[in-house]
Every structure is written in C-alpha cells, then in structure tokens.
C-alpha cells in the first residue's frame, strides 16, 4: 500500500476525462471523438480496478494520461481505419507521452488542445443545444444521464442528440483549430453564446438538481478562463462574460438557507458570498473595459458588480442598477430584462411605478409561463397593500415552479398574505 489514506480531489476523474479527450481528439481528429472517449473511459476503468487495491499513484493525472495514450496506441495499431495514418498518429502520441508531465509547456499544450475542442464543439454548423451537450460530454466529462439531469431531458434524448452531432461533425468536416483572421470574430461569438447558455443553465433556479447546476456554473467558468487566457480569446467581451459569471456565481452560496430554501437578496447573509471570486470577477470587469464596445455581458456584469459592492441590502446602488438596465434594454429588448428593470424601479420610485413599468412591457405573453413574473407582481401588490392580488400572484407562481426551494419560499409568502388578510378581516369586523 502506497498510502494509509487514499482520497481523490473532487471531480478529478471528470476533469481528467476532459483533458484526455482533448489531447486524444487532437491525435485522432474531431471526426473520431468517440475513439478518444473510449480510450479515456478505459483509462478511468483501469484506475478504478487498480487504485482501490493498490492505492493512488503519486501523480494520478499523469498516470491516467499515460494509460489513455497507450490505449489509444493499441487502437491505432488494431483498427484498419487508422492504418493509413498510423505512422503519424504513433509519432504524435509518443511525442506527447515523452513530454514531462509536470512541465509547464505540457500544461499549456493541454490548454490549447482544450481550446481547439471548445471552438470545435461550439461550431456554428452544429445546433446550439448540440453544442452545449457536446461541450459537457467531451470537455467536461459529463455522462449522458448527468447532461440529461441538467437539461430536464431523458438520457436517451441526450444520447440521440450526441449521435446526431457526431454525424454532423463528419458531414460538415468540422476540424479542430483555433480560428484566426476574419473568421475568429464570428467563431468567438458562437463560443461566448454557448458558454453563456451553459452558465445560465446552471445559474437560473428553474429546475433540476442544485449540485448539478452549481457544477454547470463551475464548468462554464473554467472553460471561459481557458478562453480568456489564450491570445485568441483574450478580448474585452470574453472578460465581460467571465466577470458576469464570477460575480453571479460568487453569490450562489447565500442564495438558499441551510434547509435549501431560497432567500431573497435582502435576506441573504452576505458574509457567505465568495469574496475571492468577487475579486476575480471585478478584475475581469476591469479588463473588459479595454475596448469601445459595451456588450450585454458588460452590462450584466456591471449590474452584478453593484450587488457585490453593497455591504448590505440597504446600501445597494439602485440608481446605477436602473441606469445599467436602461442600457441593457436598449441592447436586448427581452421581457425578462424588462421585468428585472421593473424591480430596480420599485426600489427607486416605489411599487406603483414598477407595476406601471410591467404593464408597459410588450410583448408580455412570453412572461406568462414564467413563475418569477407572478412572484414579482405579487410582491409589488403586497407592497401596495393589495394583499388579495398578491395572494393570487403567489399562488399562480407556485403552480409554475417545480423547484422545491422556490415552492417553499412561495408558500411562505402566500401564508403571509393569508395571515394578513385574516388579521385585516377581523379588524374590519370589529370596526
């Protein structure tokens, strides 16, 4: 036994899976993603079968990468598909194996491999939802069931989506490359959108398992960091995207109480906010100001920074937040943005002005399936002492969410309404 206590870093297998696939895909080509995934899978399998009895090797990452490469070499020698490219492949894999696993250049090579894979997975020829699934599978080491859990889909549906994506990769001959020149701008845009979607899927509290959602946020941040560190991706908008992710994710630990019940911003214990993450977010927000462009990411990050900067709820700079929302609505006329803007208005001009702003949202029908729309309306009615309307809103919101933490929160608010109505009813009788 090499050690008394064996323990692995959290998510080590998943993280290493992503690295192995990135490196091996570079050898086999993006059109043979499956081969890279098989070799990765076998390396992890071998680890489980030997580390349990034999202990964890000194450098688990290097061990896994070595086994995966050897497995890949076996595949190259065995499969006739690769016979034509055999010499080239063997040379590539052996050269990569020869690199000292601890050296910096090697890490840099892996990061470049991962970046190539990010660009390939987010290729405009692939449908957006396939891009996200592919990114999670190949770069983040997520299983099909885990992807399904994050997207409220069935494992079979995700498997089908991945099969189709792989087909499309072959048909469209999508290759691994870090785009350059005039192509870079449009390709970067696709990557930003997909990473943003990935983050939002984890961040938005609409469905699914809390743990999986947090992991999606972490993965989105990790991949965006890889992008931001590379000259091709080191652009103001990348930093704005990263800032918005970090500044929002930093506040996740305070979003629910010990029982997992959702808390309002006003009720959150701000000492639980991740101050190191906020500092990183602010640093990237700074770097995002380098260019001329004020993108939606810049504005969203700016709004989040306002919340992060406030030592307590009362100190929130709502006028700056409203200013940023006014700009945001210029860039993105989404009803959801308008709804959030109304919340800022309520803090500055009162609930009646906010209700008027909501009444002016057009089109409003897209909000009507959205629990938060009714929750905000109900809250504003409550503040104007229209308790009966508030109760209607909270009940409607309750019907529209299937997340337990939100249901608990909404039930609490509904109970408050009922208690107040009962109190006021008694007072009326007495009068």
């Amino acid at each position, binding site marked *: 036994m090499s050690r008394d206590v064996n*323990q692995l870093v959290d998510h080590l297998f*998943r993280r290493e899976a992503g690295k192995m696939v990135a490196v091996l895909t570079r050898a086999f080509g993006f059109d043979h993603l499956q081969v890279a995934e098989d070799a990765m899978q076998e390396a992890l399998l071998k680890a*489980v079968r030997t580390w*349990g*009895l034999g202990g964890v090797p000194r450098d688990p990452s290097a061990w896994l990468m070595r086994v995966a490469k050897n497995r890949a070499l076996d595949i190259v020698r065995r499969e006739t598909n690769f016979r034509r490219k055999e010499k080239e492949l063997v040379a590539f894999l052996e050269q990569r194996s020869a690199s000292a696993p601890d050296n910096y250049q090697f890490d840099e090579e892996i990061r470049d491999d991962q970046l190539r894979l990010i660009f390939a997975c987010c290729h405009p020829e692939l449908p957006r939802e396939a891009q996200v699934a592919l990114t999670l599978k190949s770069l983040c080491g997520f299983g099909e069931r885990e992807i399904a859990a994050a997207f409220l889909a069935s494992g079979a549906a995700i498997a089908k989506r991945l099969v189709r994506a792989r087909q499309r990769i072959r048909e469209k001959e999508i290759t691994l490359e870090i785009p350059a020149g005039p192509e870079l701008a449009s390709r970067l845009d696709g990557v930003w959108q997909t990473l943003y979607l990935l983050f939002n899927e984890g961040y938005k509290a609409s469905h699914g398992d809390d743990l999986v959602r947090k992991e999606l946020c972490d993965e989105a941040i990790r991949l965006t960091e890889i992008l931001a560190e590379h000259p091709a991706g080191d652009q103001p908008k990348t930093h704005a995207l990263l800032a918005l992710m970090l500044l929002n994710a930093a506040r996740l630990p305070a979003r629910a109480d010990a029982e997992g019940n959702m808390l309002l911003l006003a009720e959150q214990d701000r000492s639980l906010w991740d101050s190191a993450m906020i500092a990183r977010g602010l640093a990237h927000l700074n770097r995002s100001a380098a260019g001329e462009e004020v993108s939606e990411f810049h504005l969203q990050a700016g709004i989040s920074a306002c919340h992060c900067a406030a030592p307590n709820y009362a100190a929130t700079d709502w006028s700056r937040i409203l200013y940023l929302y006014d700009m945001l609505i210029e860039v993105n006329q989404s009803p959801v943005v308008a709804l959030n803007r109304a919340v800022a208005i309520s803090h500055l001009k009162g609930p009646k002005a906010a209700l008027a702003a909501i009444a002016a949202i057009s089109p409003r029908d897209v909000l009507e399936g959205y629990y938060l729309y009714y929750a905000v309306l109900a809250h504003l009615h409550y503040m104007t002492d229209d308790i009966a309307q508030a109760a209607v809103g909270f009940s409607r919101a309750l019907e529209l969410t299937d997340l337990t933490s939100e249901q608990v929160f909404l039930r609490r608010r509904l109970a408050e309404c009922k208690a107040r109505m009962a109190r006021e009813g008694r007072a009326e009788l007495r009068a």
Partner: protein
Amino acid sequence: MSTTANSFLYIFRGGADWNQMSPEEMQRNMDAWFAWMDDLRKKGHFKAGEPLQDGGKVLRGKNGDSVTDGPYAEGKEEVGGYLLVTARDLDHATELAKGCPIFQNNGSVEVRPIQDMSAERSARA
C-alpha cells in the same frame, strides 16, 4: 489476534460493467473502494493486497510447455486483484466482503480460507 483469527484470501473478478458510467460515477465507486479498504485497515483485518495487470500466461502440459495467454482473454472473468484479510471464521470473512464496491458493477469476490500449516509443521519438528 493470531490465536483466534484466521487468514482469508479475497479474489476479485470482473466488475467491468462500466459502459453506462460517467467519470463522476466512476470516481464515486473509487471513493467507495477507498472507504471499504480504509475500514478493513482500521479494524485490523487488512494484511496485504494488490491489483493485477491485465493479461499473463498460463502453462499446462507435462513440462509446462504448453504456454497460452491467460485463460480469460475476454476480461470479464479475469482476476483483477487479491486481498489477504484476517477474520474470525469463514462467515465473518464473507460478511466483511459484502461491503466491497465491486458488486455495484457486477463483479464477484471469491472468499477462500487459507490453510494454516504452522501447527502441523511444528508438530513434525
């Protein structure tokens, strides 16, 4: 312990039903192995153990001159490793083996009591 405890050999086979498992699930299984092994060690049952590499040779025939690659080329039933433990009796050793995470992946554990020859050897001496 040696007066009341006997030695047993655990032989691990298979446990390769992994096709559907994600890296995260594999890591959880790995953690379960560590926890089980740590428990055996803490309670003083652990004596020795090692994983085996894949493949090998099998010798047969009069002079061992018929040499083949391992009997389980398929890998499914291949012995993946062994463990030497101490336990009160076979029932106890069997009970201890039930905690092995290999069962989550359709593997098996063979529990064999080790023949204690020391008493007989000293009697002859």
